[in-house]
């Protein structure tokens, strides 16, 4: 007893227009329900003949607590997206993995938000790759495209091309460089500059020919960036050329008995020739060094072009002696800042720590902060605790203020307390409305501070007779973020 096409047609256009033979409306309805019940009651499964996808095994790491996994649902919409990074890092730090059923949420989150990708990448696991490889290719934001050349030459979206290049550069630097060269002449200047930033990963002498050619690029920023990258490779011809010019210009005078001081002397030509100019030594003083004369700027650039360890070897100096010599040399500011720049280029951690510990006021933020970010979290904390120990309250002018921005680890209880104490001192000494810069910084600090201090801003304000509304608002925000983080981190132990 089935519903014939004739009956279906009759029901569609109306039995009034096309009366079926042998059935009235009631009988049609009964026939339909009988058909429906017969099908439901008699349903049996069909057979699927396609082969099954090869299964994948679990990784050995233990699962994180269910309560911690459930936070992922909240994190996707939490107003501070940075907390996602802390959550992901905590799972990795504990040597755990996310339960498998949450992996599609991780994959979706990474596909939607670029800023989470680096943090979420270690959570993808083999099973996430299996899911993407066999079924859901467009969730693949973590592996280089199968055909990066096609993406590189075929896509019109800059971010997509750069992602393809970035992934390829990490795995096959030579192929990535070949792609850059392939479209170098047709890509826009802005894009080429962004492309060059990708060369920082796995930078090697094999990149030298490309970078040397870029020294003749018509765009000044590209020339400068190429020179900057070449200076980071002491074996490069560029570095050698500059060293050959700079080293003979620098002398180091040792004290003779009780006379004289350990210091550097310079004998630069004070004239910029074409060769130096091609190697990235620029004639115009940038605005950030507006108090520097062209001669000092010239000296600054030359001194920054050579690794500081060269002076230690050449003049048999310890690091402390190197700094004493710099301290006794004129122009003092230009020398220290150039030394910091060279230290950062050489990624010289011990010297970076010494410079920041004793001479950070002599260094421009542009070099001080990247140099600070080179340090281990323990060294960063040690420096910050020293800075915050002074009698000044923490405001946007405090020497530790921007360094705190450059930390990327969860602060220890000691550092969190020191920041709060310093802030308390500032509030005591100031009745001014907090500037936007300070408010924004404190909101960022809420993401770094030990979350067990989540009520601490209240105690800071409690000592104020009548705190300004802006402070109260900021305090509420900080409390909310820290309370959320505290709950989240505690969920890992629940």
């Amino acid at each position, binding site marked *: 007893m089935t519903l014939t096409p004739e009956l279906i047609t009759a029901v569609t256009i*109306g039995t009034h227009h096309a009366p079926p033979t042998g059935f009235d*409306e009631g009988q049609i309805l009964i026939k339909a329900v009988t058909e429906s019940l017969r099908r439901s009651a008699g349903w049996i499964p069909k057979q699927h003949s396609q082969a099954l996808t090869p299964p994948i095994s679990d990784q050995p790491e233990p699962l994180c607590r269910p309560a911690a996994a459930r936070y992922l649902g909240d994190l996707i919409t939490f107003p501070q997206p940075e907390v996602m990074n802390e959550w992901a890092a905590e799972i990795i730090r504990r040597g755990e993995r996310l339960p498998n059923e949450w992996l599609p949420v991780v994959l979706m989150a990474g596909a939607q938000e670029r800023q989470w990708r680096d943090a979420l990448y270690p959570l993808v696991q083999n099973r996430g790759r299996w899911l993407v490889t066999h079924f859901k290719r467009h969730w693949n934001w973590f592996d280089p495209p199968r055909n990066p050349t096609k993406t590189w030459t075929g896509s019109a979206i800059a971010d997509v091309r750069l992602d393809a290049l970035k992934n390829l550069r990490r795995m096959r630097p030579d192929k990535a460089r070949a792609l850059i060269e392939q479209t170098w002449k047709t890509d826009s200047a802005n894009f080429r500059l962004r492309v060059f930033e990708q060369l920082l990963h796995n930078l090697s002498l094999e990149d030298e020919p490309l970078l040397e050619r870029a020294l003749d690029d018509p765009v000044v920023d590209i020339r400068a960036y190429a020179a900057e990258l070449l200076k980071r490779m002491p074996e490069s011809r560029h570095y050698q050329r500059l060293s050959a010019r700079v080293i003979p210009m620098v002398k180091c005078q040792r004290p003779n008995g009780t006379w004289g001081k350990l210091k550097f002397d310079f004998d630069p030509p004070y004239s910029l020739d074409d060769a130096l100019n091609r190697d990235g030594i620029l004639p115009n003083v940038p605005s950030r060094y507006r108090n520097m004369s062209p001669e000092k700027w010239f000296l600054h650039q030359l001194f920054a072009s050579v690794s500081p360890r060269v002076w230690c070897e050449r003049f048999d100096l310890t690091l402390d002696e190197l700094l004493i010599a710099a301290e006794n040399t004129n122009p003092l500011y230009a020398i220290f800042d150039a030394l910091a720049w060279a230290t950062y280029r050489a990624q010289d951690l011990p010297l970076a720590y010494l410079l920041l510990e004793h001479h950070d006021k002599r260094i421009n933020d542009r070099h001080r902060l990247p140099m600070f970010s080179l340090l281990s979290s323990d060294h960063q904390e040690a420096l910050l605790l020293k800075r915050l120990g002074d009698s000044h309250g923490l405001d946007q002018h405090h020497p530790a203020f921007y360094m705190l921005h450059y930390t990327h680890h969860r602060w220890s209880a000691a550092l969190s307390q020191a920041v709060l104490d310093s802030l308390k001192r500032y509030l005591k000494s100031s009745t001014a409305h907090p500037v936007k810069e300070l408010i924004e910084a404190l909101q960022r600090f809420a993401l770094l501070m030990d979350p067990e201090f989540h009520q601490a801003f209240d105690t800071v304000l409690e000592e104020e007779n009548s705190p300004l509304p802006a402070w109260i608002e900021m305090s509420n925000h900080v409390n909310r973020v820290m309370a959320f983080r505290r709950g989240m981190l505690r969920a890992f132990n629940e």
Partner: protein
Amino acid sequence: MTQFNWTNIDVRQFAPDTSVAKEGQKLAVKELWRSIGRDQYSLWGEYKGSESAPYQVKIDLLRLMNGQPATECTCKSRKTPCKHVIALLLIFTDRPEDLTIASPPEFMKTWLDKVAQRSRRELDRKKRAAKPIDLERRAKTISERQAKISAGFEELELWLLNLIRQGLADPQLKQASFWEAKAARMVDAQAPGIATWLRELAHYPTQQADWVQPLLEQLGRMYLLIQSFKRFDQFSEPVQADLRSVIGWYYKKEDVLDGEILRDQWFVIGRREQELDQKLRSQRLWLQGRNGRSALILEFAYGDVPFDTTLNVGSLIDAEICFFPSAYPLRAFIVQQEGEPILGQSLHGQSILENAHRYSAALAKNPWLIEYSFIVEAGIIRPHKGNGWILREPDGHYMPVSSQFTRPWSLMSLGGGHPLRVAGEWDGRTFYPLGALDFDDRYVDFSEIPEN
């Protein structure tokens, strides 16, 4: 202090939706409140909102722990509990030291008195209900309702026949107002189940590609119900109960306490919430007894009123369950629960074919049955024909997965291509997964995971 052991997460889950939970978290800061306090059994606070008078927030912790209505706020939010109640509870769970210990203020005392009076009235009502039932009055009530439904069904029958006469291609079938008018009439006829059913049918012509036959089958089903109701008095009580269930003429719990009661260990296999219309929502909570019996705890809620979520999916409870009358009793309620729920118990399933046979047997007894619980012993989810999904067994047998199931990738990721024990709802055509057991005997509740 009373042993109130809720955590921050419990409080946020108590919120009617995530936006209230988030807003509550924002307000969970002592400084934003005019006053907050607590004693051994209650919390209170005054919050300065947009009104001239501060909102008074009151919470009875003892009642809250017993799953009874236990909160009140004077704000105008339609959501219960509102963000202020959630905020006060969050302060209590996260920073109890922020709440001043004191004797309750006047507004709190007045409210507690009112709550106590209400409890007494409830108790009296229960006592009255326990008194001998006035059979004559009950028969009169039943007969009056039956008459109203019959009158409504007479109209509905003519309407259905006329629909077939005019043809389902009639453009007015695509207008929600066409169905809504008849649904409203069914509400007047005290047949709310039919009203909800008609509102569901309104979506058929607009949301399905081949909709004529499915709609015709549903209309046929409705017609069969009308014909059956004409012979209502000739049926046995269980069959009458099944007809009443479809009509929405539900039994009250106290009316059925002398019915079938079964004590067993029940595994909570999953919950599914559905929006029946703009105001009404339902929650189906499925239990599986060690004896093999299934039970369905069905609840309805209006507006944003939260459902009872005290039973955790994946837990095993020792409980006495009372079944509502039916030719195939399935709908039930918990009379008494013994001890604490146990987590991590294993669950046993059957093949898809065996599940289908069970469904056929159930359907033979109650042809009005729609949703039924399936526990498939070894199922692998995989994409099928475009956007569809199937759950297949290693031997190749498969069943289609409901298009309303929005976490297929989570189920696929959980199994990783290996067969899993999957529990869910079967509606005669498609399967809706509710939970699954992984290889470490960890039961996963899919309703906890965001859609993917």
